[in-house]
């Protein structure tokens, strides 16, 4: 069967290498160091004082439920700037089965051209 040594072999990727176990050990060590540094911190958090309020000026908070960012509002900047390509892609995705078959025929035709049969 598979020996224990074989489990921890470094994974060669041609020009590079990747050893997840070493990576995980390094990750844990770094986490520990961060945790130790965190221990030096000054605990000055006081519950129930003005320190914990969302707005220091004392403005009323709005309802929690309405503060959730809905998924269609995420990445609106990216969507806005890529509008030209998204609109083009949307107009291709008609949801019509005839078009699906048409694309199959087009791909077949392009491949025929590519190979030089036509």
């Amino acid at each position, binding site marked *: 069967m598979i020996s224990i040594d074989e489990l921890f072999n470094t994974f060669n990727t041609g020009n590079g290498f990747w050893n997840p176990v070493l990576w995980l050990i390094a990750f844990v060590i770094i986490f520990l160091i961060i945790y130790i540094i965190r221990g030096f911190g000054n605990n000055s958090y006081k519950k129930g004082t003005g320190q914990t309020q969302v707005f220091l000026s004392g403005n009323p908070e709005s309802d929690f439920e309405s503060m959730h960012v809905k998924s269609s509002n995420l990445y609106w900047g990216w969507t806005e700037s890529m509008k030209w390509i998204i609109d083009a892609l*949307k*107009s291709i*995705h*008609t*949801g*019509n*089965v*005839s078009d699906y*078959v*048409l694309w199959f*025929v087009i791909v077949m035709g392009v491949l025929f051209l590519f190979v030089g049969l036509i």
Partner: protein
Amino acid sequence: MIANIPYIAAAALIIIGLYTIIFRKNLIKMLIGITIIESGVNLFLITLGYRKGGIAPIFTGAPAESTMMFPVPQALTLTSIVIGVAVLALMLSFIVHMYRHTKSLDVRKFGGDDQ
């Protein structure tokens, strides 16, 4: 030339079927398009099985000195026809359900989730 007619017919059937599927908007007509393609492919298979001077491979009825054909293409065609019937029945039952829900057979009425 005359021997090529079945091949031309098979190619023509496939192209007619594709045309029907792409340019007709009625689901039932598109289904007929699929069966036309299927007939074209089956015709092509059957044509491949024919050899000049060969006779049907029925062992008991064959004359002694004749050459029987190798019946693989015929067997393939039979299998393909059986599969075709199953697929056709399934697609028709889908169309029945779609018609019951929407009272429409227009292919453009279905889909468009991305727009």
